[in-house]
Every structure is written in C-alpha cells, then in structure tokens.
C-alpha cells in the first residue's frame, strides 16, 4: 500500500517538474515569436531562454544519511516554486527548477554544484543540509561568484559575499532557549554535543551565553556521531546534578538518547537547538521520550501563527501537495520556502536575474510580511540583514509534554548578533569569504 503511494507520488512529482519544464519551453518559443527579434542565431536563443525563465538549482538530500531532513527541504522548495509559478512567476517569468539528488554525499555535491553553475547556469542555487556540505561546495561557489542560499540552522559565522545563510544561527537558537531555562530552572548547565565542528562551536556558544546569563557549566561531554548507547552519559549527568541540560546531539544515532534517558528515569529539563524541529523526534519516538525538552527554533510545524497552522497555511498547503503519512514540515523546510519568496522579491526589485544585481537587491534588505511580500510562516515580519547576509528571525521556545504535544512558550525577534555586533562583518562595504568562530572573540568560549 505504502509502496503504491510512494511510486504515485514520485510519478506526480516527476510529472509536475516535467510539466513546468515543458511550459517553460513553450513560453520561451511563444515569447520569441511575439518579440519578433528575428535573430534566430544561437546567441539569440541563449539570451531568450535565460530571459524567459528563472532557473533555480535545488540540491537537497532525498537519500543517504540526511534524507530525513533533506526531503522536506526539497519539497518545500518545490511547493514555493509551484505557488510562485501559479501566481504568475517572478516578474512574469516562470521558474524552472533544476534538481538532482546529491544522496548526502559531499563529493557528489561538488560535482553537481559545478554542473549546475557551469552547464545549467542556474540563476540561484539552494544546496546542502550539513555544515560539512556547505564548506565542501563554498570554494566552488566563491570561484564562480554564484548566488547561493544555505538554508539550514547552523553554528553561525559565515561572512561570504555570495552566500546567504538563511537559517537561524546557534546564537539565535540557543539565545532564545537558554535564557528561558536559566530563568525557569536555575543556573547549573550540563552540555552534551555531537563531536564535530557543529557541536563544538555550539558548545562554545552555550558557554558564551551562560556567561551572559550568569549560569555555570557543571559538565560537558562530546559524543561521537556513531554512538548510540548513552548509559554512561546519563550517569554522568546524574552525578553532576545540573538544573538543566543543553543538548546539541545530531543525527539518527543520537536520537536514541531521548528514548534512553526516559527509560533510565532521567527527568532533568533539556534545552536544544537540534531535537524535534529538524528530525521530528517527538513524532517518531514513543512518548514520553521527549517530555520536558525545550527547543529554541525559528520554525516547527506546531508554530501557532495564522500563516502556518491556520486554514490554508503552510502546513495545509504542504500536505495537500505531499499527502504523506509520517512526513513533517521541518525547520529547514520553512527556510527553503520563505527564502524562495525573498529571492523573488529581490529579482523583482532588481528587475533582472543578473546575479550581482540580485545580490545588491538582497543586500538592500528584503523583508517578508510587508504589503508586497507574504508573511513568513514563522511569524509576522522577518528581515534579511544586508550587511551579514543573515536573517533576523522570529524565534520560538517550544516545549514537549508527556504526550509529546507541543506548546509554544515564548516568541521573540532575535537578530543575528555575532557577525553584525561582534565581528563587524559588512558585506556591502567589504567582500569576504570567511567563517568566523566564537573562540576568537570570547574568552569564555575557550
């Protein structure tokens, strides 16, 4: 039964993409005829096809390690593109999506990125789930000065002239949930984090934020990504007796932690930037594994805004297009969704798809939730900060209860602060391609 569902869905998706491509092809010949510029040479066809459609490259994992997180990203992009096309396209031009499945493989990402830039000549590129992927393709993107949207929540600090990091940073996510837990439960924090770049940098941020909020770190542990037994970790937490735990565990193996801490009877509140919003553990694991987990996020399916959970909101429209059981509109899906709209705004402002001009328009500060642009599902208005290429997000603290029902506890706007206030990155003034880390700026991060 589920077999049928999937093949039908894949057929429809493929058919839809083919139709869009077909339509784009038709309209380009039609317009060519109307315009009657009679050149007919190769050069003329080239400019015509690029003038008549907007070519968007989408590289998101639908198989391999990150399929769980990448599939909703891919689908949300397709949803946004379909909506924009049905609504008349970008400035009258239809969007032509170019997509391929990079299979969670960084080498394949690099090959496909080269192909999308050099052969497909995409006008804008959305690509990648993990920070490792982003860093693998960023040199290619820099060399080709390609407009690139990175749409995962991440550790922060990328100041790059053609890269737009649209997801919230660790400072934004942790900065929304840590102060709340400090206020609510006490000052002793135990950190558990995945043992790689993302986890280490996130832990640095927890230390910085702990310092800012008068909290102490009473213990800290980094856990290899392949680890799935957490007995000793749970004992260590119990020995340290923290008031709450900050967890930046990542991936499928680490998700076992929540089941195991529940069955071991560990009931300390847990703050996180990684659980629930991306891998929807509260849907996949049996209750009460996620009880008392607090996620600091810009978006989850359960965010109670009209444009998200209301009638005809993002969640409704997503499931209408992808009526799939066990599916979830994750944090990154929303970022892919609204960033496509931000790109549309920028192209219409610039009046062209030429990348330097679109980047200039993006840097002038695009916001959603104004009378021109739709409201972002995460809430009200959100703005792109032109100086840092990051987004001033609407951030929520979401709490799961014993039955895994979610409650939105606090919401507030949190701007990106590290690049703007601490580093002083201003890409409108100075071109850079650097990733900054908190260790260079904060003593307590060391």
């Amino acid at each position, binding site marked *: 039964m*589920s*077999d049928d569902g*999937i093949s039908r869905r894949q057929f429809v998706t493929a058919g839809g993409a083919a139709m869009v491509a077909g339509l784009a092809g038709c309209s380009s010949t039609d317009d060519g005829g109307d315009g009657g510029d009679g050149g007919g040479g190769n050069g003329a066809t080239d400019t015509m096809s690029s003038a008549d459609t907007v070519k968007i490259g989408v590289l998101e994992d639908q*198989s391999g*390690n990150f*399929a*769980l997180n990448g*599939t909703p990203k891919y689908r949300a992009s397709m949803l946004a593109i379909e909506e924009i096309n049905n609504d008349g396209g970008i400035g009258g031009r239809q969007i032509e999506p170019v997509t391929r499945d990079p299979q969670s493989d960084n080498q394949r990402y690099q090959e496909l990125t080269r192909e999308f830039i050099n052969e497909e000549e995409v006008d804008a590129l959305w690509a990648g789930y993990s920070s490792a992927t982003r860093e693998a393709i960023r040199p290619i993107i820099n060399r080709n000065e390609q407009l690139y949207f990175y749409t995962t929540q991440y550790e922060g600090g990328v100041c790059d002239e053609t890269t737009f990091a649209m997801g919230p940073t660790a400072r934004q996510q942790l900065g929304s949930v840590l102060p709340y837990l400090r206020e609510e439960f006490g000052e002793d924090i135990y950190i558990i984090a995945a*043992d790689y770049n993302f986890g280490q940098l996130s832990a640095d941020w927890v230390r910085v934020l702990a310092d800012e909020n008068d909290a102490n770190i009473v*213990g800290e*542990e*980094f*856990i*290899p990504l*392949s*680890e*799935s*037994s*957490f*007995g*000793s*970790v*749970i*004992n*260590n937490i*119990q*020995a340290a*007796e923290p008031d709450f735990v900050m967890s930046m565990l990542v991936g*499928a*193996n680490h*998700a*076992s932690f929540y*089941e*195991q801490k*529940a*069955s*071991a*009877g*560990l009931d300390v509140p847990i703050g996180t930037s990684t659980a629930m919003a991306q*891998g929807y*553990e509260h*849907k*996949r*694991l*049996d*209750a009460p*594994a996620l009880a008392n987990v607090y996620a600091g996020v810009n978006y989850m399916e359960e965010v109670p805004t009209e444009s998200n959970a209301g009638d005809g909101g993002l969640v409704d429209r997503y499931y209408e297009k992808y009526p*799939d059981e*066990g*599916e979830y509109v994750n944090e990154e899906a929303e970022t892919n969704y609204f960033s496509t709209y931000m790109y549309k705004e920028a192209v219409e402002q610039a009046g062209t798809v030429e990348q330097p001009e679109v980047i200039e328009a993006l840097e002038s500060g695009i916001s959603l939730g104004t009378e021109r642009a739709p409201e972002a599902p995460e809430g009200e208005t959100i703005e792109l900060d032109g100086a840092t290429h990051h987004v001033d997000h609407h951030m929520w603290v979401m709490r799961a209860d014993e039955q895994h029902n979610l409650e939105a506890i606090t919401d507030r706007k949190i701007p990106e602060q590290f690049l703007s206030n601490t580093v002083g990155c201003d890409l409108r003034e100075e071109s850079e391609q650097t990733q900054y880390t908190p260790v260079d700026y904060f003593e307590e991060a060391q």
Partner: protein
Amino acid sequence: MVNGLNLAFQFLDSFAFVVLAAAGLAVIFGIMGVINLAHGEFILFGAYATTKSVTDLGLPLPAAMVVASLLTAGFGVVVERTIISGFVPNWIGQRTVGRDLIEPLYDRLADSMVATFGLSLVMVQSARILFGNSIDTVGTPFGNVAYGAFSYSTYRLVLAGISILVLVAAYYLFTRTTFGTRVRATMQDEQTAKALGIDTERTYMLTFGIGSGLAGLTGALFAPVLSMQPTLGDQFLIEAFVAVVVGGPSVVLGTALSGGVLGAVSATVTNLTDSTTFGRIALLVAAILALRFLPGGITGLIERVRARRQEATDGD
C-alpha cells in the same frame, strides 16, 4: 568519579551490546567464512519487523520479537540460496565444488565482501523506499532501577541477561548436538562431510539461516531503544567484526570472552574519563593490541596454551 554500581551497569551494557551485535556474525563470518557486510542490515530487518509488528499488527512486544527473528531467519535462507550459494539459478540442482555454473561465496572472503556490501546498499535503500525515512519507535519497557542519585534502564539489564542466554544456546547447539557436529564437519571439509552422508547443502542453508535469525533477534531486542531509520544497522557492524576477530576461532566462546574484555575496557575507560569518546577509542585500541599480540584471537591463545601443555605432558 568512580561509582561501583555505575561501572557494573555500564559493563553489562557494553557487554550485551558487543555480544548481541556479534551474535549472528559469529556464525556467518566466524563459522561459515562469509564476510557479511550486510550484517547491520539483517539487524535492521529484525528491528523494522519488530516495530512494524507492534505498531501495525498490534502484536505484544515479545511475540513481535519472535516473529521478527523468524522472518529474518527466513530472509537469510533466501539470501543464502540466491546470492551466497547461487543455488537457485543452478539447474543442476546439487552443488558440487568446482563444477558449478555459479561458484558459491563460502571462503571467498573478498568476493563475499563485495556481494554483501551490494546487498546492504540495496537493503538500506529498499527500507527507505518501502517505509520512508523513519518509522515510529516502540517505547522501552520495564522502567528503571534507581540507586541514590543514579538510575539505569531495567531493559538494558534484561538485554545483558538475554545476551548470556543467546551465547549458552548457541554454544549448546554447535557443540552438543548432532546438527552442530554436522555444521562443523561441513565447514571443515565439505567433500569429506558429503562423502559421509551429510546433506551439506541443507547444512549451509540452515546455518546461514540461524546466523541471520540471531542478527534479527539482535535487531528485535534493540528496537525499543534505538531510533528507527534505514541506516540503524551501521552502528553494529564495526563492533561485531571487532568482537568476532578478537574472539578468534572458537566462535561462540570467543564472542563471550571478547564481549567481556571489550565491554570491560570500554566501560572502565568511559567511567574513569567521563567521556564516551575515550571509551570508544580504548575499545578499538584494545582490538588493535589483541590483533597484534594474539593473532588467533583470545580463543587462539587458549588453544595455544592448551597445546603447549599437552606437549609438555607428552614429553614426560
């Protein structure tokens, strides 16, 4: 900080994980000489079958575990007939060594590695296509044992008990029954065994089925504590191979001993350093040292010592 009970529980936990991860592989790799890189995916099969039986069919958890182990054993038999022995496409029907259209993969280490690696890719992707990127997990039963500031999941302790039972059952089956004797005879010298009237085809098939069933049982037992997704088998593979290789030629006993040694190393180091990473490193360093100094594994050393003693007494 060292707490005796913590250390004991963590040792039982590591022991159960190593032993159960290696249980099926000990039979398929240790006895039959097939490097089964799809071992993790056999575990995945068992875990998914258990979870699906509970969530979709409404079976009680223990029944679901039995069903899942049997299903995995059946799946293993199919794999053995088609991929490993190549029996099915062979119209002659009977395998006679060296004369077949399709040479079986027994004792062809590199070849079995490639074939089973392919199988593992197919299985992971099939799970993804059939069931999506994740399925709901069933909760862990039994609650916890609390002692002072600490507590431990009771189910993890039950796992340790079951792992010992599995070892005892396997030891009995392969050393104390006629079937076990046939298996060892077939693996040692197939031609001679056949000449003596053993149906070696059947023996191969059943042994592989038993190995697969054990892997399925491991998946079934760990289904309530792991997050269900198509790559869940990965986390077992390395520990399983390390345990079998460190254990050495006497497979069942070796698995028990290496589970004990590796579990103790990993639990002690994790406990002393307060770091899971160091525990993992220590486990692998112990494996390197074992391979360097005990090329025959732990049971190889035991046999050598025994042989030397024998010589000494003979000399008298």
